[in-house]
């Protein structure tokens, strides 16, 4: 865990200031889109990381909560005229409630069993939403009503408001992670993640911890779902419960640094930047070029530095410190 020296704090404030100022300086709509996407997936990654990084429960079905959040707020909006701001919170609660039985079922399993079970639950939800059409528009999906500029209904004309909303979500996610990291829950969490049996042996309520962290993780992921619908104006089961969302959430965390505060953020920025670079070098044209290169990079990261980019950065930092300490050692204490 990184200690927050005063120097670190200054850096973080500067960074945050820069991030806040982005929409003021960047007028290119597409660039803002990329930023929004980065922030959104960093946020989803942060939410996932609580489960997958700290508690080491590799969930590949987080899209279940993403979708539940998205659908809850949309149903409330279209059928009952409820503002998505409220719908977002209700969606979070629905996701939390769903995480209880899902967790109860899946937590009995370890490792890959757990992963496969989570994939199955997200798929089941997708299939259910596809099947029961009267409830939620089925496969055709629905667009959200065009309300023009309606801040109270989470619709805006420009891009900047969306940017700030998702930035706020990310900040919330980071703050939550930070607080958990520092608290007793955080210590127990890591213990459970490292070795669940040992943790239980010393009296940690592993099941309870897992359940609680799952609640939080599900809640946050659902918020992202609502935002997403409001942003792309459309929802259908394939998009809402998309396996790609589940994978991306885990991916950015692993590449960036699993179980670290900033891992998902770093991971998202790196992956999106890589993607943008690839796009401009290789252009369009052939389906598959980008993803091929992308997957090669992924394999390289996994093979070379499984602790993720944060691992690389931490090592670099440590080496700096060590070399500094070494130089200090050479100074004689006594003349």
């Amino acid at each position, binding site marked *: 865990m990184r200690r927050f020296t005063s120097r670190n704090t200054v850096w973080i404030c500067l960074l945050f200031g820069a991030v806040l100022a982005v929409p003021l300086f960047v007028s290119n709509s597409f660039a803002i889109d990329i930023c929004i996407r980065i922030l959104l997936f960093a946020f989803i990654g942060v939410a996932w990381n609580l489960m997958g990084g700290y508690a080491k429960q590799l969930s590949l079905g987080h899209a279940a909560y993403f979708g539940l959040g998205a659908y809850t707020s949309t149903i409330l909006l279209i059928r009952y005229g409820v503002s998505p701001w409220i719908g977002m919170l209700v969606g979070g609660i629905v996701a939390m409630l769903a995480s209880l039985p899902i967790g109860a079922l899946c937590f009995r399993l370890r490792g890959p069993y757990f992963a496969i079970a989570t994939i199955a639950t997200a798929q089941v939800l997708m*299939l259910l939403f596809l*099947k029961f059409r009267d409830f939620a528009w089925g496969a055709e999906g629905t667009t959200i009503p*065009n309300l023009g500029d309606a801040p109270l209904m989470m619709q805006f004309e420009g891009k900047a408001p969306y940017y700030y909303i998702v930035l706020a979500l990310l900040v919330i996610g980071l703050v939550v992670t930070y607080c958990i990291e520092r608290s007793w829950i955080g210590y127990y969490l890591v213990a459970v993640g490292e070795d669940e049996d040992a943790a239980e042996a010393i009296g940690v309520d592993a099941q309870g911890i897992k359940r609680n962290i799952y609640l939080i993780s599900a809640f946050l992921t659902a918020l992202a779902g609502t935002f997403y619908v409001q942003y792309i104006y*459309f929802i259908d089961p394939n998009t809402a419960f998309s*396996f790609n969302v589940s994978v991306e959430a885990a*991916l950015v965390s692993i590449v960036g640094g699993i179980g670290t505060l900033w891992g998902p953020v770093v991971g998202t920025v790196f992956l999106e930047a890589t993607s943008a670079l690839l796009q*401009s070098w290789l252009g*369009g044209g052939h389906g598959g070029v980008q*993803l091929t290169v*992308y997957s090669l990079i992924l394999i390289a990261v996994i093979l070379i530095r499984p602790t993720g980019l944060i691992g690389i950065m931490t090592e670099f930092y440590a080496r700096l410190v060590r070399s500094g300490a070494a130089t200090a050692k050479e100074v004689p204490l006594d003349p």
Partner: protein
Amino acid sequence: MATTRMATIPRRHARRDFLKKSASVAAVAAFGTTRKAFAAEPVNIGGLYPVTGSFAQIGQGCVNAAKLAVQMVNDAGGIKSLGGAPLNLIVSDVQSDTTVTRTETDRLISGYKLSAIHGCFASALTLIASEVAERAKMPLLTGSSSDQLNKDRHYTFTPFCRASQFALAQLQMSKLVSDAPKVAVIFENTAFGTSTSNGLREQAPGQGVEIVMFEPYSAGLTDASPLINKVKASGANMLFPVSYLNDLILIIRAIKQNSLQIAINGGSGGFVIPDFYKNVGAVAEGLLGVAHWNHDVNADAQKVNAVYKQQHGEFLFEYAGGLVAQTFMIADALERAASVDPQKVRDALSTLDVSSGYAAMGPGGRVKFGPDGKNIYAHPVGVQWQHADLAAVFPKEDARAPIVKA
């Protein structure tokens, strides 16, 4: 399994100038020796199609057709009221992905001075593009049959028939085959499947057609036999599968394997593309379907088809031909608006009324939009696979070949 692509991560970035450049190069190259010096600024129009991802096959064909259409417009002198300005097509790959569609539509609209856009083949993608276009006050033309596209919109124009009209045509065609049609409807639980099948269910009683089975199925079948087993048990004498290509292949083959004698109306979608015949082979001969455009509708359509066939080696399929017509509709609107301003183009489209030329080469031969963006003259044609090609066979006014009895 529903359309989860387990490890495929969609990339949400656009193709940049690469496509823009190649489109311009193609347009310039098309003029060859008769190159004129263009005094007038090109008019930008956007084309949004899924060139990669699950709809890649069809998307590529659409882009080919879009480029050909622009070439044709420019060859004929461009937009005369704008000083002979050529059309400049800006293509974007929406990667069969909803997020990409959102950002790409936005990127095209805000990054280029567009006058109009067309796309996206798949309903979900088109709905999103339509939402973005609506908010950006950019006119969008599309051949997508989703009825949702005509609700509460002012900038979306649909020159071709709607899903409900497809359904009606299929029902009417079933009476050609049998006096007491007992129809089994199996459809993918995708937007395409559900919208078309709803139309079938609603209109069947009115047409005197009995639906004995109405079953959504999960797209991405591992095996169509259980489904066909069910069809067999239902006692149907006609089958309406509503599917994209891969499931259609399995269904048609399973019907053969299970020795099921049943008339088939394959609908639209994956049924009316050259790849269907390539994969299913002679089994396709005589199968009926419906389309919102076919290449034998009139002489203009035949002309375009000939050029396309020469360039790409296969016939010009439904959606692709339709979008050639759409390009000419845009050209017509530009001509009358005498402006590149999207609002003026939109207004010109709303007063469009053509009954000749490439813009009107669809079934019905006339395009005029109602207040909801629907073409009031649009209707589908029934088609039949004959000699590895599609022939329009229904209704009588649109039939270009007799129906071959299987």
